[in-house]
């Protein structure tokens, strides 16, 4: 029972790091980015390449994965995404689904279709016991890293100048522009950063989520659940949504393994019917 909770929290925190970038882009530009998972996958494969092929230490692989995906994200944002912001939601869906298809096929072509595993250092493998409950060391690492990241994100948003600009832009783009905030640049940086986080999540999660070319398709719905259920008005909403989703999914797969993700989808639909703005949204902002 507690193991489920523990695994669920680790899983949920991972989902949060993966999806929080998506939540900000959706909230900021009202942009539906179905290709977010592709960036996560990029981070995962980047780590596999660095650690397994080049033999870099795992601890170095993670930050590089973050940087590389952030770079890719920023590049895509400046060259491709900027053209699609003002378009209809349908166009955004088509465009990003197209990117997903391309990334799936491209990774399949370059890295093969089989599942990849990152070589994790010995020290992080295995379990330790607290009160007779087995807890994976690697999952503890995930919880620690993701927890620190969450706190850091919260601080950045709350305390820094960039954070206040970002919040202003999310609240009201026009007013923010009037105040002399370069919304385009804010969005570019946020997009890159969010992609980087997704990449880091993909690298960390390769062990738990599995990493193969269909990753962006498989987890797309999970990211979207986090964002729609959590709402886009803060990062605490998606955070709690991620934790709930993580625990729910792990518990569901443990207790009713045959139903698979059915429970999650059902809960998602109920929440969306009940509160279309998200479970943790502050009233109807828009």
């Amino acid at each position, binding site marked *: 029972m507690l193991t489920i909770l523990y695994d669920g929290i680790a899983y949920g925190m991972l989902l949060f790091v993966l999806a929080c970038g998506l939540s900000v882009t959706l909230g900021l530009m009202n942009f539906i980015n179905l290709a977010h998972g592709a960036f996560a996958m990029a981070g995962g494969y980047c780590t596999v390449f660095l650690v397994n092929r080049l033999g870099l230490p795992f601890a170095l692989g993670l930050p590089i994965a973050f940087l590389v995906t952030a770079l890719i994200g920023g590049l895509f944002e400046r060259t491709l995404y900027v053209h699609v912001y003002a378009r209809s939601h349908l166009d955004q869906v088509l*465009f990003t*689904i197209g990117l997903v*298809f*391309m990334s799936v096929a*491209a990774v399949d*072509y370059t890295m093969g279709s089989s599942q990849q595993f990152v070589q994790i250092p010995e020290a992080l493998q295995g379990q330790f016991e607290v009160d007779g409950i087995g807890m994976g060391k690697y999952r503890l690492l995930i919880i620690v890293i993701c927890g620190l990241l969450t706190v850091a994100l919260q601080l950045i948003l709350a305390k820094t100048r960039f954070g206040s600009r970002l919040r202003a832009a999310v609240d009201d783009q026009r007013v923010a522009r009037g105040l002399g905030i370069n919304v385009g640049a804010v969005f570019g940086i946020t997009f890159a950063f969010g992609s980087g986080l997704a990449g880091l999540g993909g690298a960390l999660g390769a062990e738990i989520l599995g990493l193969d070319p269909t990753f962006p398709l498989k987890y797309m719905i999970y990211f*979207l659940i986090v964002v729609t259920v959590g709402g886009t008005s803060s990062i605490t909403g998606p955070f709690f949504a991620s934790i709930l989703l993580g625990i729910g999914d792990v518990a569901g797969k443990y207790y009713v393994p045959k139903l*698979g*993700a059915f429970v999650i989808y059902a809960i998602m639909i109920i929440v969306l019917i009940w509160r*279309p703005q998200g479970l943790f949204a502050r009233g109807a902002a828009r």
Partner: protein
Amino acid sequence: MTANADEVARYLKRRARWSPFEIAFWIFAFATIWLFPGKYLILKDTAILALFALSLDLILGYAGIISLGQAAFFGFAGYFAGLVAKYGIINEPVIALVCSGLIAAALGFVTSFLVLRGSDLTRLMVTLGVSLMLGELANRYSNITGGADGLQGVEIEPVLGRFRFDLFGHNGYVYCLIVLFICFVIARRIIYSPFGLSLRSIKGNTLRAAAIGVPVKWRLVAIYTVSAGLAGIAGALLTQTTAFCSLDVFSLERSADLLLVLIIGGTGYLYGGLIGAVIYKFLQDWLSNLTPQYWQFWIGLVLVVIVLIGRERMAGWVRIVRSLLVRLGTWLMPRLPALGGAAPDGR
């Protein structure tokens, strides 16, 4: 310039008239039965895809609902058609097909209440969620559905007790084509009816549509139900002509591909789905010969490029070609009032 009732009636009906282009399209479609005897399998798949895309066009092109879950109805009816045939509940394919459509429509009716709330993103999620849930259910009850192995041992009786599905797919293709045509005529009738006009108004300006007394919600429920029914018929056709049904009928890729089909052909003029299906199948055939494993890459590229160029610009191009064809048609067939249907009825 003044208006008079006859003229107004004629102008209103003008849109609904079968244009020479349409007539030529269907003559060619049926001619393929004799023109390409070796290609029945791909032609049959194209006809089914066209019907499926037509169903999406009804809600996307005419009511503005973005759906990533049209596969729910396709798959649901597909399994239904497979199961009734396998267990001999309904043996005659045409009756089974109609029942499959009805049951998919019923599912559409029920889920429409979930879908018609909230923003585009919520709709996207709910439609997708419904189809994924059905997929999980089909996987869970593998004793009934065959699970990951697919539904096997389906025996389909001859259509109308006479036309058996042959190995070459001839009867299967003719069957699909006729069903497609009938469904198309029904959809066309709906679109050019007052009901169809009200849908266009909802898509154009929902606020005003409500302000002039259109019951927006019920119209959307109705078209969503019809659309689900057509998608269901498409799914049932696939099961009947292949005597097989597998879990991938519910997959996200199927819904996403469907969007692509419709986008290639263009939305909101009924032929988009049909033309899109032909182009898509052709592309798929060609690309998968070129790069067997990675044709999905090219499909993705097509999507990205279409959006970057701009669908409006492409639609504009289509409109130019269409108006040229229409003009050519009216030049070739001067004044055929009989085509427009009877005189305005007395009441």
